C-alpha cells in the first residue's frame, strides 16, 4: 500500500476533521491532495504531533481530531502513547503510517523493520482500540470504524517506503499555523 493512496482513500473524511500531520512526506502528500484550513502540518519537533492532537482533542471535545503520524515519530515519543491512553479522548483518531523507515531523512530503517510492533505497543500502553491495515480496503474500513467508534484508536497502516520527490510546499509554516487557529476559532463561533 502506498501512503498517498491511503490518504486519497480517506481524504473526503479528513476534510470533515481537524488534522495534525507530521513533517516530510506525510505533510507534502496531504497537501498535494488539497490543503484545507483544518489541516496543520508540524514540520519539525518529531514526536509531538500526537501530543498536539491530544491537546486539541482535550481542549475541544466536540471536534473530530485526526493525527497522521509515522513510525519514526512515534518511536521518538513512545511515552506519549501512555499519555494518550491515560486521557483517551473519544474524539481522537491516531493514524500511524509505518514504512519501517526514516524516509524523509535518507530512508534509514527504523526499529519496526526489525520487529517492533507499534499497534502492539499502543495496545500495551492502554489505547482502547488498535488496528493494523495492509491494504487500502482494510485501511479505509478501519479508519471509518475508528471515526465512528467514539473511542481513542491507534490505526497502524503498513505502507511502502515511497514518498514525493520534494517535501517543500508553497504554504509557509506560520500562514498554516494562524489559518488553522482562526479556523478552529470560527468552528467555535459557529457552534460547530
Amino acid at each position, binding site marked *: 500500500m502506498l501512503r498517498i493512496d491511503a490518504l486519497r482513500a480517506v481524504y473526503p473524511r479528513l476534510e470533515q476533521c481537524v488534522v495534525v500531520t507530521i513533517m516530510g512526506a506525510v505533510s507534502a502528500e496531504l497537501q498535494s491532495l488539497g490543503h484545507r484550513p483544518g489541516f496543520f502540518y508540524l514540520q519539525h519537533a518529531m514526536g509531538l504531533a500526537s501530543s*498536539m492532537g491530544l491537546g486539541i482533542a482535550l481542549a475541544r471535545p466536540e471536534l473530530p481530531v485526526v493525527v497522521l503520524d509515522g513510525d519514526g515519530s512515534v518511536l521518538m515519543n513512545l511515552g506519549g502513547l501512555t499519555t494518550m491512553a491515560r486521557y483517551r479522548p473519544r474524539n481522537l483518531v491516531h493514524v500511524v503510517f509505518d514504512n519501517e523507515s526514516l524516509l524523509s531523512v535518507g530512508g534509514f530503517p527504523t526499529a519496526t523493520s526489525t520487529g517492533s510492533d507499534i499497534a502492539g505497543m499502543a495496545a500495551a500502553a492502554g489505547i482502547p482500540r488498535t488496528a493494523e491495515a495492509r491494504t487500502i480496503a482494510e485501511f479505509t474500513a478501519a479508519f471509518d470504524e475508528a471515526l465512528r467508534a467514539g473511542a481513542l484508536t491507534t490505526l497502524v497502516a503498513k505502507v511502502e517506503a515511497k514518498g514525493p520527490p520534494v517535501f517543500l510546499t508553497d504554504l509557509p509554516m506560520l500562514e498554516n499555523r494562524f489559518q488553522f487557529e482562526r479556523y478552529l476559532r470560527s468552528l467555535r463561533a459557529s457552534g460547530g
Partner: protein
Amino acid sequence: MPVSVKHSQVIYDALKACGVSLVSALPETWLVHLIRMAEDDPEMTLVRLAKEEEGVGISAGAHLAGAKSAMLMQNHGFLASVNGIVSLARLYRIPLLMLISYRGEFGERDPWQTEGGGTTEPLLQALDIPYERLDEPGHVAHRIRKAQALTESSLKPVALLLCRDLMWEE
C-alpha cells in the same frame, strides 16, 4: 513534607485568575500540592505526562484550539523539553507559560539536583526566553499575570522559576 501548601495555593490561584484551564505536569517534590490542586479542581484539565517535552505539544494544541495552558515541571524537565520549545513553540510562534521548579540552587541538599541548577538560567538566556523568579508570595500573582500577558502578546515561551524560598518551608 515541608513543601508550602499556602504558597502553592497562591501560585495556583494566580494561574486560575489568568484563565489557565489546562495544566500539564510531571510530578516532582516541590510540585505535589500544585498538581493535587489541579487534580481536585473540576474546572481544570490536568494532563499527567510521561516526559515533559510532551507538554509543549499539548500546550501548542490547546493554544491553537483556544485554551490557555501552563506547564508545571522541574528544571530537569525543562532541559528535557528543549527541542519541543525550539522546533514547535518558537518555530510556530506558540505562547508557552512554563512554571519551572528551580532545583539545585543555594540551599540544595540533594547532590543529584546540583548540575541542573547551574544550567537552568544560562539555558533560558541562550534560548532567549524571558523569565522571572518567584521567591516570595507577595509578587507571585503580579509576576504570573505579567508573564501570561507577555507570552500571549509575543507568541513566545516565557518562564517563571519557582524558587526554594517560596516552595520549601524549613
